């Protein structure tokens, strides 16, 4: 079983709260989303495992069970081409859940006209493999968002 942790602090809005239909309709996969605090901070590894993909605006960590979790920092943030993001780790790194991976500023993303909402998605998972999915309320980074069996 994989415990998936919040990469950022903020208000949980669920995938339905992501202003992008591909995420909102769970086409990328099931999961949840967090509207982050508008302050500079770090986005954390959601699970302990290996970073298989690290873009400034998005990353995937795969744990020992082969469960891959995508964290997507904001919507349409690929357009920023890395500006405003600081990589704190590298692809292939072994990381611990809660370890900072990317430095960013959600307030700056929002000021640029984009949503800073972070989708946290279980890749190649059926929705019924997820339990205790948090879909509302405030969350502190590092707190559990869902479990994946």
């Amino acid at each position, binding site marked *: 079983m994989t415990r998936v942790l919040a990469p950022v602090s903020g208000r949980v809005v669920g995938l339905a709260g992501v202003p992008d239909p591909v*995420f909102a309709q769970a*086409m*990328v996969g099931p999961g949840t989303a967090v509207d982050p605090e508008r302050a500079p901070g770090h986005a954390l590894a959601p699970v302990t495992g290996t970073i298989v993909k690290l*873009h400034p605006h*998005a990353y995937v960590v*795969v744990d020992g069970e082969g469960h891959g979790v995508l964290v997507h920092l904001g919507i349409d943030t*690929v357009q920023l081409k890395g500006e405003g993001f600081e990589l704190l780790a590298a692809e292939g790194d072994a990381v611990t859940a809660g370890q900072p991976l990317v430095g960013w500023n959600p307030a700056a993303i929002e000021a640029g006209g984009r949503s800073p909402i972070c989708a946290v998605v279980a890749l*190649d998972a059926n929705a019924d493999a997820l339990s205790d999915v948090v879909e509302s309320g405030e969350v502190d980074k590092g707190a559990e968002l869902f479990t994946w069996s």
Partner: protein
Amino acid sequence: MTQRNVKIESKVGLHARPAAMFVQTAARAAGDVTVAKRGGGDPVNAKSILSVLGLDARHGEEIVISADGDGADALLDELEALLSKPEPEQA
């Protein structure tokens, strides 16, 4: 096994949004569907979003998609159409 070389026109490459569409389409096929970067790299399962995101195919790169069985050609047509769309820089 039917194969097709396709150049990725999506500005963001084969990432979040195009990747999700690609995988959903591939997943409807009964047989195996794989995708590889042209000129190197092992083919990965095109029905796995984790594998497709891990492939990290970018705008302008060529990939090879392969499918088995009945309807392979039609499926490859559909996948090619998805990748050939120069869709806006989103997700």
